């Protein structure tokens, strides 16, 4: 049985280590926060200007001056610090964030990422995605293995405009987990329960090694 959104988030959470500073994107990546182990100390960054992001507020705690990069109301923690967006992206660009978990439209076998623009559709903008993939030490993509129409999203080369080149280190899909290493390409390292390699091959265009 392929993984669902929560399974994928849980798997992504395993990439977090004690002491990590982590930026979580919008959508499934946001769910990763629910699966951070009690045994590790992780600090979440919100790129609008906050380190130490807490959970959503209770109804009577909502504060319009306290939102995350997805513009959702959130809360602060005892460790929280606030800073400007320039200071926030200095942190990101300077390589101080250990891990970012992002969604994607396409990932190529050398780690190119496309997740901000579909030509011909209204372009909303890249927000902080290009900064994150360029600056964060390790980038984990969480996405469905194929598009709704069944088209592969793991490709030889991305067809959509890129967010960054050779920036993705790991892809977690509903079918399995792939690592991407510079010059070594993509490797399947885990398969979701009851999913066959044939099934994965059938919905993957990218070339990959298998090491499960």
């Amino acid at each position: 049985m392929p993984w669902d959104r929560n399974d994928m988030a849980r798997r992504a959470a395993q990439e977090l280590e004690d002491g990590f500073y982590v930026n979580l994107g919008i959508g499934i990546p946001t769910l990763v926060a629910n699966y951070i182990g009690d045994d590790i100390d992780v600090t979440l960054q919100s790129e609008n200007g906050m380190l130490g992001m807490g959970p959503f507020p209770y109804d009577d705690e909502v504060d319009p001056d306290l939102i995350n990069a997805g513009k959702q109301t959130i809360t602060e923690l005892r460790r929280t610090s606030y800073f400007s967006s320039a200071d926030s992206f200095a942190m990101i660009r300077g390589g101080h964030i250990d891990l970012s978990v992002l969604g994607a439209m396409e990932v190529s076998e050398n780690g190119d990422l496309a997740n901000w623009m579909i030509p011909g559709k209204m372009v909303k903008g890249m927000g902080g995605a290009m900064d994150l993939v360029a600056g964060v030490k390790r980038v984990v993509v969480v996405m469905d293995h194929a598009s709704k129409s069944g088209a592969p999203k793991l490709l030889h080369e991305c067809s959509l405009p890129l967010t960054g080149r050779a920036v993705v280190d790991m892809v977690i899909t509903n079918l399995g987990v792939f690592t991407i290493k510079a010059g070594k390409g993509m490797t399947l390292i885990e398969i979701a329960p009851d999913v066959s390699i044939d099934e994965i091959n059938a919905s993957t265009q990218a070339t990959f090694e298998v090491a499960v």
Partner: protein
Amino acid sequence: MKKIYPDAKAALDGLTFDGMTVMSGGFGLCGIAENLIAALRDSGAKNLTVISNNAGVDDFGLGLLLQTRQIKKMISSYVGENKEFERQYLSGELELEFNPQGTLAERCRAGGAGIPGFYTKTGVGTVIAEGKEHKEFNGETYIMETGLISDLSIVKAWKADEQGNLIFRKTARNFNPMMASAGKFTVAEVEEIVPLGSMDPDCIHTPGIYVQRIIKGEHEKRIEQRTIRERESA
């Protein structure tokens, strides 16, 4: 040298003109200069280039200036919340320059700091890098981005004193400090004007040197995504 003005209209008096470049602080609707945006609309200044991370929503924030078609060009990182923006853009009435969010923030910081250009890895190998100077540092490729300054920056802070020292609150700080520093003229609206000497001098986010005029405003502080959790029942 009095910096405190009675209202937003008075604070923008003499500072607006057609074709000017305006920086507008805020992230989404958080920390935007609500009163000054309305006064900028009422000034009637046209053909504005507006530098702002976002473009407001249809009926609030910079959306007000889109309704009146006072904006010629936006320099932003994300404009997804605004239907009128989409309409004007797709019909060719509005120019749009996308900047990665961190690049935009740094361009404002650089402009205020007298740095006309800097190198970044962000956007290398993407459409953002097209036409920009590329340079290698330690075997890695970077692109040059330029500093930005504005004719007028409108920012929102939590507190000000009469010298223009500003303190921001939580994530409403966002782009406001850099934009304050990058304005040839900067006007700040605040929730409270506090007595001189009542701020902790170690905790002033924007020193008064960057702020020429101040007003106390009224703030709706609209929330875009009200996300809450349920209390566990006792």
